[in-house]
């Protein structure tokens, strides 16, 4: 016993140790520990973000250097605080507070003391910097805009938040990421890939050289430059015209589906969201709940389309053979649904298709609409056919553009009305408002522009998109290069287009004529309502205009939607004509009109429902 005591103890100790070591090194070990090894620090090398050019190769978004003043609190020697604060442009209390914060974070690691100095401040500071030990300047790259427009299209970048970090393992805290618009949609392309350097650290977190002599390190991969389909001049011009007005404009090149302009009013200068004033400006924009500048009305604003929708009803009726272009309806300065009279502005009389479109006759389209439904034994069947045709124009659902936001609009089907009125308790007369683009149908300006492009193409459209090319390769997603055919035969478009041309030549939009350019268009004056203290209140009509030009060989199709602009031709029509002229001719011949459009605002209209007092709508003066 006494001889074996020590031997057994030795064996016991051996087993215990090996057991514990197996637990530590075999059981608890995991091979990806290297990722959180405190001895290895990853240092990232960020490539420059890709530039963004417009369709003509003009730079829209570049980069600029910004300079962060960094501090390593431990290394700070006593300094002339007053002078330093003056150089940095901050006050002493602020400086002390920031220093305290940096020290709390880590006395050994660098913290940002003053972020994103401008080039001028940097120049002033640079030569004095050596007097202040423990401080240094770190360069970083920020966006730089050569345009004042397209803010919502281009989007902005900002530091990744918790949400991004949770969902995308690529990002680390403090990195910049596209948050909206093109910056978000093409983040991967623009961003490039960061390089990583592995640095061996000691326990005080000091660098002691590269890990494994840098064998694992990677080089950054440059972000690709992007060419987008916008026309910078057209975009900027459109935004100037939108001054003081709310609404959206979308212009599309019909033969490619490329978005030429995408304007939302009110908007903001994209430079506001860069650099030091970013967060202050962002709050201001974000909390502006009245004019909502961050809300992209061109793509997310769904409203009744109004009279432009009549063109589709005409096409559906022609396709179904319930009318031909000579079919006539009488307008009694309105029409009757049962014994209820609905008004019409067209002047009355007998209308055929061309003059019905030309003068936007409600009675004509009510009759046409009924005929579509009357063709079928049940309203449900008629509804299905009508819905199928209308939706083939890209309405009532997401278009599938390469923009990260958007709304589907609404084309109601039978299920919708069964829910609303009850099965079998509605008919074409119940939903007659849809015939003139009021009622339950809704579309975004982008959808209206696309619908117009489909008419311009006589029966097909390309999914609207914003990317022209990325990097050196010209290829884009093939889903943007294949045509979507509508369910309407090509031959039925001609009479409708003729009607739309007459709108411009003789009809509701004869005021907007552009010398030398033939435009096909359709006005819309859309009744709209809001709620004030629970009461449904009618506001001044929305002014809508869709058009394409030239009629013979369409190069641009667009939709202009101006909230509370009253007659379709008044604001939307004029703005559309200026944009078409600008795009096709490059200059404006009608300087008076241009001046008037640039200066006129609708702020007085927007103030009405907020004033708290009774107000008049649809005032004739302007």
């Amino acid at each position, binding site marked *: *016993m*006494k*001889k074996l*005591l*020590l*031997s057994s*103890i*030795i*064996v016991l*100790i*051996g087993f*215990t*140790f*090996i057991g*514990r*070591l*197996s637990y*530590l*090194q*075999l059981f*608890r*070990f995991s*091979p990806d*520990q*290297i990722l959180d*090894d*405190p*001895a*290895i620090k990853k240092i990232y090398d960020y490539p420059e973000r890709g530039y963004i050019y417009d369709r003509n190769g003009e730079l829209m978004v570049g980069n600029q250097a910004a300079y962060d003043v960094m501090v390593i609190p431990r290394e700070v020697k006593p300094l002339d605080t007053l002078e330093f604060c003056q150089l940095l442009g901050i006050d002493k209390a602020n400086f002390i507070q920031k220093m305290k914060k940096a020290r709390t974070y880590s006395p050994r690691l660098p913290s940002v003391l003053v972020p994103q100095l401008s080039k001028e401040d940097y120049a002033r500071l640079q030569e004095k910097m050596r007097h202040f030990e423990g401080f240094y300047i770190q360069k970083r790259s920020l966006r730089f805009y050569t345009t004042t427009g397209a803010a919502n299209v281009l989007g902005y970048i900002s530091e990744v938040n918790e949400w991004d970090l949770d969902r995308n393992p690529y990002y680390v805290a403090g990195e910049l990421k596209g948050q909206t618009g093109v910056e978000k949609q093409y983040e991967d392309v623009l961003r490039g890939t960061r390089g990583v350097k592995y640095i*061996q*650290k*000691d*326990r005080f977190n000091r660098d*002691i050289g590269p*890990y*494994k002599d840098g064998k694992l390190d990677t080089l950054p991969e440059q972000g690709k430059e992007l060419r987008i389909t916008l026309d910078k001049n057209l975009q900027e011009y459109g935004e100037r015209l939108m001054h003081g007005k709310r609404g959206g404009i979308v212009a599309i090149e019909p033969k490619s589906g490329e978005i030429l302009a995408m304007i939302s009013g009110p908007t903001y200068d994209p430079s506001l969201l860069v650099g030091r004033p970013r967060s202050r400006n962002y709050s201001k924009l974000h909390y502006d709940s009245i004019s909502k500048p961050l809300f992209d009305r061109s793509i997310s604003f769904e409203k009744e389309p109004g009279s432009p929708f009549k063109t589709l009803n005409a096409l559906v009726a022609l396709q179904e053979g319930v009318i031909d272009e000579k079919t006539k309806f009488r307008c009694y300065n309105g029409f009757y649904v049962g014994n209820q009279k609905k008004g019409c502005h067209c002047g009355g009389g007998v209308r055929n298709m061309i003059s019905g479109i030309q003068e936007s006759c409600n009675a004509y389209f009510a009759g046409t609409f009924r005929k579509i439904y009357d063709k079928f034994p049940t309203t449900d069947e008629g509804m299905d056919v009508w819905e199928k045709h209308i939706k083939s124009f890209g309405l009532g659902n997401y278009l599938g553009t390469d923009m990260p936001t958007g709304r589907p609009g609404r084309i109601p089907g039978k299920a919708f009305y069964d829910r609303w009125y009850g099965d079998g308790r509605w008919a074409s007369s119940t939903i007659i408002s849809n015939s003139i683009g009021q009622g339950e149908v809704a579309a975004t300006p982008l959808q209206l522009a696309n619908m117009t492009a489909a008419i311009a193409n006589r029966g097909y459209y390309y999914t609207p998109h914003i990317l022209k090319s990325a990097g050196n390769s010209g290829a884009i997603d093939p889903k943007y290069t294949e045509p979507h055919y509508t369910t309407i035969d090509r031959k039925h478009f001609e009479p409708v287009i003729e009607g739309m041309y007459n709108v411009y030549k003789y009809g509701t939009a004869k005021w907007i004529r552009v010398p030398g350019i033939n435009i096909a268009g359709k006005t819309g004056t859309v009744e709209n309502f809001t709620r004030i203290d629970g009461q449904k209140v009618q506001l001044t009509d929305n002014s809508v205009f869709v058009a394409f030009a030239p009629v013979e060989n369409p190069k641009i199709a667009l939709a202009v939607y101006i909230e509370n602009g009253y007659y379709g031709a008044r604001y939307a029509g004029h703005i559309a004509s200026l944009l078409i002229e600008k795009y096709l001719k490059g200059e404006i011949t009608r300087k008076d009109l241009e001046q008037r459009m640039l200066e006129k605002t609708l702020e007085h209209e927007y103030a009405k429902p907020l004033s708290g007092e009774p107000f008049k709508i649809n005032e004739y003066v302007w």
Partner: protein
Amino acid sequence: MFGRGLFGRIDWLTVILYALLVLIGWVNIYSTTLSDPNLSIFDFSTLYGKQLFFMGLAGASIVFVLFIETNFFERFASIFYIVSLVLLLGLFVFGKTIAGATSWYDLGFFNLQPSELAKVTTALALAKYLSDIQTDIKNRRHQLYALVIILLPALLILPQPDPGSSLIYFSLFFVLFREGFPLYYLGILLVMVLLFATTLMYGTVWVSIGLMMLTILIYGFKKKSTKIPILPFMAVMGVAVLFSFSVRFVFDNVFEQRHRDRFALWLSLEKDEKKLEEIRKTIGYNTYQSEKAIESGGFFGKGFLEGTRTKGDFVPEQHTDYIFSSVGEEWGFLGTATVILLFSFFFLRLIYIAERQKSDFSRMYGYGVISILLIHYFINIGMVIGLLPTIGVPLPFFSYGGSGLIFFTMLLFIFLKLDSNRLKDGI
């Protein structure tokens, strides 16, 4: 195959094991202290260079030990012992303080640590006393003298303060047990340790309840024939309960906070997450870092000079007390298991050698050597892998340090010298 000279009679297996351990130790010291790979390994401005020099000194001490007359050690054991006690006393006056402990004499090129010397001399003195023809281990008075020999240096070292080194001397009890010191002392010691730990973990009340249950169990299941005298048994249980009470008192009033923290960490006493985190960052920092380093080595290790935590100096005192964590990180489970096996084999070999001695003195000294080396190994590795609380003792042959290496070497080779003469002397 060997001649009858010294080299033929020395136990080469032990020498080879010793050399392997020293070599592996140095390789790891090189890895932990390497800062500039361009310097020669013989550069004495570096710690690994210095250690190489100490290894040379250790070699010299081997030669010195081997060529000394065998009887010399036995004859002068008492004088060595007294000299080392004087040296320990002298520290109170002339000692040099390093890292808060006054444990060194400054010899200019070299810091001498007399507590290391005293380990050798105490082992010798104990063997000498016990092997004396007039000493009877069953005699209470002689037992007391033996205890005094062991505890005197421990008491002198304690106030340096170096509780780790003084703890080492308790290992010499194994020599006593081998020579017939009643084993129930060991039993009592174990029960005390058990009561100590369980009291801290579960409190006196539960320990008392546990003891009561135990009593009931014993009386419930004993054979009718076996008689346990009730009064003495109850007295033992009563003492145990009293001891349990005293543990709480001693722990709360005699121990200092840092000691309490170590136990709090070791026995997972602290339930408050925040405080536990605080303890982990301060007292437990070394252990945490060394565990992490070992864990990150995995099965194969990261490779020689590739240990990121070793390079980053994450484990404090890694070249001295925590050298084993570098083995764990760079050589993985393969390395650590190999080292454990080498040590185990080494100790078993020493026991085998000790048991084959004809001379009582040689056997007793041999047990002293094994006890001292074993307790170092047990406490050091136990601490580095997080099984034991932090107690600062070096890993024999491995840890950086001149005094340690040289005196461990002398400790061992005096024994090998005695062994080489086992067939010659007839005493």
